[in-house]
């Protein structure tokens, strides 16, 4: 395994547990830790908000009332209104969906690409391996945020045009939905900056596992590479991958807010906690609650996701949680 891997996933035991009770054991370990339990609670809350939030929210998150801007909390607007008179509570609830989408989709893209390239690299070896790893090196040596800023600034317009073309040809409404499209561009940019870590991790897992006896045995019995991946590698590597996958959630949410700060994040009318913070930053000494509310929600959420990742690491890697 390469020594430069930077995540705490390096500590994951390479001889992953093989029993069926892996998950139930892990779950018990996870909830035994109070910090993890708390974070699990927050994670579930965000999950529920992301799914049901928009349906439960008192107002439409884009509904403006320009005559009632920057209001403090009232009975009508429980958390007040923002600088366009939009209900902050509703926007925070919608923001949960964005936050989760940022985390899941950007990490999802990153790990899908990483898994495919990592697996190809591990299995092909030789020059294909070198090529893919060289490519990963190039992307890894970019400052993360810089690359995401560039990409989302550059590809936005061409992709918007392409999507509209598709809409015009097919009439499928989703391609006209600029909010969704916009999210995808931001997530894609974040994923582009983070896939090499996923690729390296997965390649390393495959390389270390495929020399194991049972894999060698399967191969001797004539199993195809896909079968080997399905039967042996996936169950064994999945723990490490899940840990690394969730560990990136908090970072992705913060990165999204930085993109907003630099003007290339989620665009209006979309709402994310990051954009809410940035929109209120200029007037924050007059209306501190406008920054504080999304700020606190973002902080709690990132904190919970980080702790959750930590807890998962301990749970799936019991060796480091003794004591």
């Amino acid at each position: 395994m390469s020594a430069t891997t930077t995540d705490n996933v390096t500590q994951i035991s390479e001889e992953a547990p093989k029993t069926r009770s892996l998950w139930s054991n892990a779950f018990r370990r996870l909830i035994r830790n109070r910090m993890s339990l708390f974070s699990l609670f927050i994670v579930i809350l965000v999950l529920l908000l992301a799914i049901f939030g928009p349906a439960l929210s008192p107002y439409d998150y884009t509904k403006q009332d320009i005559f009632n801007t920057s209001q403090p909390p009232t009975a009508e607007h429980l958390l007040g209104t923002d600088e366009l008179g939009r209900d902050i509570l509703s926007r925070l609830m919608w923001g949960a969906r964005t936050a989760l989408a940022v985390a899941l989709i950007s990490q999802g893209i990153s790990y899908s690409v990483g898994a495919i390239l990592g697996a190809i690299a591990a299995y092909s070896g030789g020059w294909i391996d070198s090529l893919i790893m060289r490519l990963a090196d190039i992307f890894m040596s970019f400052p993360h945020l810089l690359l995401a800023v560039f990409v989302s600034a550059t590809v936005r317009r061409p992709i918007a045009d392409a999507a509209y073309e598709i809409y015009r040809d097919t009439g499928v409404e989703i391609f006209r939905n600029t909010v969704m499209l916009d999210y995808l561009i931001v997530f894609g940019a974040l994923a582009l900056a983070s896939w090499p870590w996923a690729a390296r991790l997965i390649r390393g897992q495959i390389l270390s596992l495929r020399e194991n006896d049972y894999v060698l045995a399967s191969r001797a019995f004539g199993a195809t590479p896909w079968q080997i991946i399905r039967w042996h590698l996936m169950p064994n590597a999945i723990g490490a991958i899940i840990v690394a996958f969730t560990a990136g959630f908090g970072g992705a949410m913060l990165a999204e807010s930085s993109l907003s700060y630099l003007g290339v994040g989620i665009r209006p009318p979309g709402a994310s906690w990051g954009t809410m913070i940035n929109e209120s930053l200029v007037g924050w000494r007059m209306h501190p609650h406008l920054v504080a509310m999304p700020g606190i929600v973002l902080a709690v959420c990132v904190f919970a996701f980080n702790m959750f990742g930590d807890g998962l690491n301990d749970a799936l890697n019991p060796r480091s949680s003794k004591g």
Partner: protein
Amino acid sequence: MTTYVLRRLLHMIPTLLGVILITFTLGYYGPGDPLQYQLGEQIPPDPEQLARLRELYGLDRPFHEQLVDYIVGLAQGDMGMSISVQAKRPIRDMLGTGLGVSLQLGGAAAVLIFVIGVPLGMLAAYKHNSLIDYIIVSFSAMLPTIPVFVLAPLLLILAVLQLKILPYSFGWEGLLDPRAILPLFILVVGPLLTIVRQTRSAVLEALPQDYVRTAKAKGLGNRQVMMRHILKNALAPVVTSMGFVVASLLTGSLFIESIFGIPGFGKLIYDGLRSFDYPLILGTTLVSSFIIMASNFIVDMIYPLLDPRVNLD
């Protein structure tokens, strides 16, 4: 060993070329035009003048010509001229002075991160699952969840205007000046969590192991055991985080330096991005990439010294 080092160094060249190619492509096809930003405010440019200036800066030439010229220039140590941030100033000079400041700041932050992070992590591990453990882990996890551009003005108002414990809010007068305190603090809290976590879990892993038990059996006191055996064992994974720390210091400095008015490398990245100063963006990206690569390289060199299980092939 020597061949390994040589090979690693040689690998940097194609990687840097890849970085140039990607940045160049994104910059060339991107939406920004540095010439639009020559003025701090927004008077639309004069089309004829714009065309003349494009010619002057060579921006009117085809992509491949510009790219080749840039690489040839780079090989001779020429990184082009800034267009909008400091008109016609050689990028090399700008980067030179900027790095001088940021390396001090970043270096001090890196040292602090390890000096604070490792003991905190060890303490947390030693007092595993106690209140102290929770406090250390929560604290180091809490601060970096606030975006830097919120945390910085917040602390400024608190420390400078409300509590009046710091006399200055902006500027750079060297590391030993009080102006450096807040930027350093914010730089440090960013990656601190990673170091605390790494140390903590490495120590936890090492605690029950045979040699620790043996050492204890030999009658060494708790503290000595901690220092002698565990620290050495825990240091390896911590050192591997150096690459991550360097990368996050780079990103952090981008916001911090522009908020605190520090004339460093991070501010150049920020200014370049904001004004689409194409040669400046290229230069800063290239140097950042080089810094990240170099730190990974150093980590890989140090790692085997700490962990005898790893060999350089």
